[in-house]
């Protein structure tokens, strides 16, 4: 079971953070499926809850945050929200590989990469450490690095792109088949970014992984992901096959986000800024649609009723303006029409 890509089913997940103003939801009622063997990209701005969602996959939300409701079912592991202590620690690394947001700085500066690899192996009770090193060297070689040299290096001897690749190696070396990449290319150059994204795609295919990419950059998702999910104010506002969503975005936020990217060709003045600014934990509206303050198609109902995610074929959108006209019986709730 651990040797093939697992599927993940997140259902009604709510994660709250304790603040002086009470418990506020950073992620609210999010349902998302990661199909086995797919790459899913989650796009969101700061405060959208995307990183919190990714941490929930490991059940690694730190206090003052906690998972308040919902479940995260991973094939071969069961509901990770119920795992505790030793079980959880084993699951991380062996089943789920996580490449942290600041992978460029997440290595221990005092130890060589090889030493850290051995620490990782020992803490997961790997008997064949030699085999682990061989595996690591192969992985690094696969990503275009000189494995032996990198394992002998300290963090400061590696460039940003190299560190990112080391992060990916550490996430995969224990043979995890579910990989979460949090902002894998932030602070990297265009060329390095393109290189890392290519590696992510190739390694994903070769090792048979289920991959989740978290990013603020729609371009990154467009390059690697099969499916795209857009988060805003703790809610998943739109999801669907990447090409379809980019080609014809339905949620006003997705539309605005895509329109706000200056492009290389065409009329540059077509790029439009989104008015307003993204909400923070404390300023997310308590009721109604989270995006209405900035929404060009705001209606009365948006102030009071939070739109439910509604499926239309493979695409799911949570917006009154989108679902109202098509909300006729027969067109909804069919997974693969």
């Amino acid at each position, binding site marked *: 079971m651990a040797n093939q890509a697992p599927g993940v089913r997140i259902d009604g997940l709510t994660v709250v953070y304790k603040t002086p103003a009470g418990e506020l939801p950073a992620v609210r009622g999010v349902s998302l499926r990661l199909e086995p063997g797919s790459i899913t990209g989650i796009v969101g*701005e*700061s405060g959208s809850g995307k990183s919190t969602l990714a941490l929930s996959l490991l059940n690694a939300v730190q206090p003052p945050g906690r998972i308040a409701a919902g479940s995260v079912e991973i094939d071969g592991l069961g509901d990770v929200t119920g795992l505790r202590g030793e079980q959880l620690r084993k699951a991380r690394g062996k089943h789920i590989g996580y490449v942290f947001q600041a992978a460029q700085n997440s290595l221990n500066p005092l130890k060589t990469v090889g030493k850290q690899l051995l620490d990782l192996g020992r803490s997961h009770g790997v008997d064949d450490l030699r085999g682990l090193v061989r595996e690591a060297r192969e992985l690094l070689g696969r990503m*275009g690095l000189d494995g032996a040299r990198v394992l002998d290096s300290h963090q400061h001897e590696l*460039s*940003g*792109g*190299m560190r990112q690749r080391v992060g990916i190696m550490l996430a995969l070396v224990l043979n995890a088949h579910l990989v979460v990449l949090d902002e894998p290319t932030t602070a990297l*150059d*265009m*060329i*390095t*970014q*393109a*290189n890392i*994204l290519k590696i992510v795609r190739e390694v994903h295919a070769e090792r048979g992984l289920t991959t989740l990419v978290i990013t*603020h*950059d*729609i*371009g*990154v998702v*467009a*390059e690697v992901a099969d499916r795209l999910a857009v988060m805003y104010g703790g809610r998943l506002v739109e999801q669907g096959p*990447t*090409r*379809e*969503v*980019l*080609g014809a975005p339905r949620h006003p936020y997705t539309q*605005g*986000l*895509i329109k*706000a*990217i*200056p*492009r*290389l*060709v*065409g009329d*540059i003045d077509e*790029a*439009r*800024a*989104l008015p307003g*600014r*993204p909400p923070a934990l404390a300023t997310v509206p308590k009721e109604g649609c989270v995006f209405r303050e*900035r929404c060009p198609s705001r209606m009365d109902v948006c102030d009071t009723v939070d739109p439910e995610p509604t499926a239309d074929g493979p695409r799911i959108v949570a917006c009154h303006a989108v679902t109202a006209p098509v909300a006729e019986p027969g067109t909804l709730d069919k997974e693969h029409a």
Partner: protein
Amino acid sequence: MITGTGVVKTFKQRGKLLGAREVRALRGVDFSIPKGGAASFIGESGCGKTTLGRIIAGLESYDEGEIAIGGEPMSALTTKQRQPHFRKIQMIHQDPYSALNPTRTVHQTLHAPLALRAKQTGRSRQWMEERAAEVLTLVGLDPGTVLARYPHQLSGGMRQRVVIARALTVDPEMLVADEAVSMIDVSLRLGILALLKDLRERLGVSVLFITHDVATARYIGADGELYVIYRGQVVERGPVDTIIADPVHPYTQSLLSAIPVLHGLERPGEQPVVPLESLDESQSDEGCLFARRCPFRDERCASERPLLQITTGAPQEHACFHPARRDVIARPMSEV
């Protein structure tokens, strides 16, 4: 407004026990940014674009070459005499979080440079307050709500606007924006870019944009000049739209090829250029600096350094022995 010829900057790195390592940040760069014009420096991190921006803003010294502001060569002046010239060129930092003093309110932040200005020109307190409100309004902030706030009470986008407002207090003739939107939320970035564009159009302020994202450079000034910088050397230079549409240097082409394609909206270019290896500063300085990574290199590239030149017919300059047009950028589906 500002021109530079043959600007050279070398950083000496200490550390190794024997012998200091030298990093050639700039190897003789020429540039010229007209009054009210726009220019963009693009390249990978460590290519020298930030160093050049800092030299232009007067925040860094240079070892060789000449910089002239408003026609006046800086080498003829003492450090003190240069200051008023460089003050006309204000830097907008990448990180709006560290660019504002967390212990000072927006009012205090704007007040300091305005007080200096008022003292020099003999203006009143009243003028200072009016001017503070004016620059805030110019950058799209409401003075009434923002003045008494501390930086931590503002969003990233608002902070960057305050940073720009602070630069405007000294009536600059040019703004140097170093990756000015990379740390700002995606939905707010275009707002800041639009502001810079707007300041350029309305106030006639020149804008120098330093970035690794060509598309944002194009947004600020499609009519401006683009400088593609590689390891301290300008390898291609010309009008933004020309270079985007018709890049001839393989390095420019690989930068443009690396821009993510919005599959579903766009189709990737037919002939993307991917560098053979990643940037390594310790590579030899002999021959063309890009040769080791260039898929189109030959023997000549390994031994001889190409200089910036204009091939007949092309509107841009480039430093390559084998310039060639290649279809590298993504185009909208609707267009193809």
